[in-house]
């Protein structure tokens, strides 16, 4: 990668994958990938090869999040380098296989872009998830998608937190992007959520085609929400939750939460307030899959990221 005055010249993004079913009960991605595996016309673009792929087929078969362990936490260096022995959890085996097919993670042979399709029970609308604030390519792509989706809002979540960042399925690629659309119950396919996800991908693939054809994208800024903290439910000594997300916070993803605002409501009717010093922007509020991960919601802070102009590097 070379850069002249203000323009970053980046390698073309030729090998692209769309992952559905990383969680086997998040139906939009599963349905889209199955549809495109049967008929790929909609995802074909000049200058790209796009592979639709079901990441966790056994979980999809059972319509469950995972079989042994969460695939979307399984791509750790330890797991990827562990020897292939009997008795490995299914998802660890699967992570190694995916790393072979689409990685190896961190190498020059890895896929250029992986879109990983997810749904959430939280009222997050359409959300794009980034893992790096310095991946110019991803920032420009996200900017393009947001503009194309307007006036429909597309929020951008940045998880670069040293402790809270996790080893995602998509992280084997050079440019990983998470697509998270909600609210949708697990195991349910809602038409509006399905169509939103389909549209996001359409714009994403348009961007890749334009980039690979040599189009230059001018400098831009992207409003993001940067992950700060995980907030758990109040629990008793047995680990059972003793309160629910407060009705005033429920469904208020991306809205400011200030000190003194209601946060939880105990089962016997007592309100617990948010006591943090600064205004935060909660997200993943009341996500079903996070009860077992000790998370009622995540707090974020707003940030504006700047990206250089980019274009494809000449050969």
């Amino acid at each position, binding site marked *: 990668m070379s850069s002249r005055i203000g323009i970053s010249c980046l390698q073309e993004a030729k090998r692209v994958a769309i992952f559905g079913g990383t969680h086997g009960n998040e139906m939009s991605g599963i*349905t889209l990938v*199955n*549809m495109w595996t049967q008929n790929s016309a909609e995802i074909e673009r000049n200058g790209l090869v796009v592979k639709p792929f079901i990441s966790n087929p056994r979980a999809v078969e059972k*319509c*469950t999040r995972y079989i042994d362990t969460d695939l979307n936490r399984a791509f750790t260096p330890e797991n990827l380098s562990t020897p292939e022995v009997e008795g490995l959890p299914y998802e660890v085996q699967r992570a190694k296989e995916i790393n072979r097919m689409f990685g190896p993670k961190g190498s020059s042979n890895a896929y250029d872009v992986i879109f990983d399709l997810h749904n959430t*029970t939280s009222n997050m609308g359409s959300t794009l998830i980034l893992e790096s604030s310095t991946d110019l390519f991803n920032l420009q792509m996200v900017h393009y998608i947001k503009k194309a989706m307007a006036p429909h809002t597309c929020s951008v979540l940045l998880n670069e937190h040293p402790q809270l960042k996790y080893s995602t399925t998509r992280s084997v690629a050079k440019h990983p992007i998470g697509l998270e659309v909600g*609210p*949708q*119950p*697990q*195991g*349910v*396919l*809602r*038409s*509006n959520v*399905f169509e939103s996800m389909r549209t996001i991908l359409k714009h994403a693939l348009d961007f890749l085609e334009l980039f690979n054809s040599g189009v230059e994208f001018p400098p831009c800024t992207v409003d993001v929400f940067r992950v700060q903290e995980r907030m758990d439910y109040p629990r008793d000594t047995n680990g*059972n*939750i003793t309160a*629910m*997300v*407060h*009705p005033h916070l*429920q469904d208020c993803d991306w809205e400011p939460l200030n000190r003194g605002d209601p946060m939880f*409501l105990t*089962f*016997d009717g007592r309100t617990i307030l948010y006591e943090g010093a600064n205004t935060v922007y909660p997200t993943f509020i*009341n996500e*079903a*899959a996070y*009860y*077992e991960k000790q998370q009622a919601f995540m707090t974020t802070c707003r940030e504006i990221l700047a990206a250089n102009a980019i274009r494809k590097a000449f050969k």
Partner: protein
Amino acid sequence: MQMDRQSHLWRNAVVLPAVSRVAVCGGTHGNELSGVYLVRERLKRREDGTEPVSVVAVMSNPRAVQLCVRYIETDLNRCFTRAALRAPISEASPYEMIRSQELNALLGPKGSTQAVDLLCDLHNTTANMGLCLITYSDRDWICLHICKHLQREMASTPVRYVHFDIPLNEAYSLDSVGKHGFAMEIGPQPHGVVRSAIFSAMQEGVQLMLDWICQFNSGTLFEGGSVDVYTMVKNIDYPRDPETHTITAAVHPDLQDRDFCLLHPGDPMFLSFSGETLRYKGKEALYPFFINEGAYYEKGVALSLARKRRVEIPSVRSETLR
């Protein structure tokens, strides 16, 4: 005049046995969390109810609750037919078949005089159904009066009475074990999630039910009136690929979340993935419910359809002497 009217009502009321023993069951499906937490709270606080009604709280499927799944091997709420309750079981039998017989022994036996007087089974649905009392009878005056009471007292939650016209022998759900029984079904809520507004609504519904029973058992006369009853007519499955059997369309955005809004012939029902609108082809306008319930994909049900009719209910009072 007032006295005459009161005594006229009193003499003409239907007299029914007191509802002395009540069971409140949660976690029949382990991921329908309002009922799970409601039963847990009642068990924690040892709320046995005060005279004149005794209330037992039961966690129906504890193993499924532990794993936060609908069921372990088979749907517990389909294991209460006469045949299932009589089937010989062994250690090798599916967990839920063993459990249904345990619950029948505890709260039944179904059809006998030892059964609890009323069994209220708590459920959630991903469908936008508000609060529904779902039962097998359209002339159980106790259930219908309880429904009327909830409708009167619950300001912000729609309350409806849903009837499945199935004889007791073939009635397959836990609520059929009690002498009177219903599922109290509240949605929309995703499975595996507890939403505080939904929990509060269920808590309120259960409390109002118990209040009514207390008053009834104390000799209060409840005046008759009418209740709209939705009787299930048929289920409609998703359009599916003839070879792979996978679904090829989603519930249409115009139908999604419109439970109990009359569906007319020609109204949109599904939107195929290729963009085609598929319409309701029935001849009769019917009321849809359980629209897009997550657990019903595997049962081949995209939505259920009901006929609505107004049922007249008589005044009732308990056998208790004043």
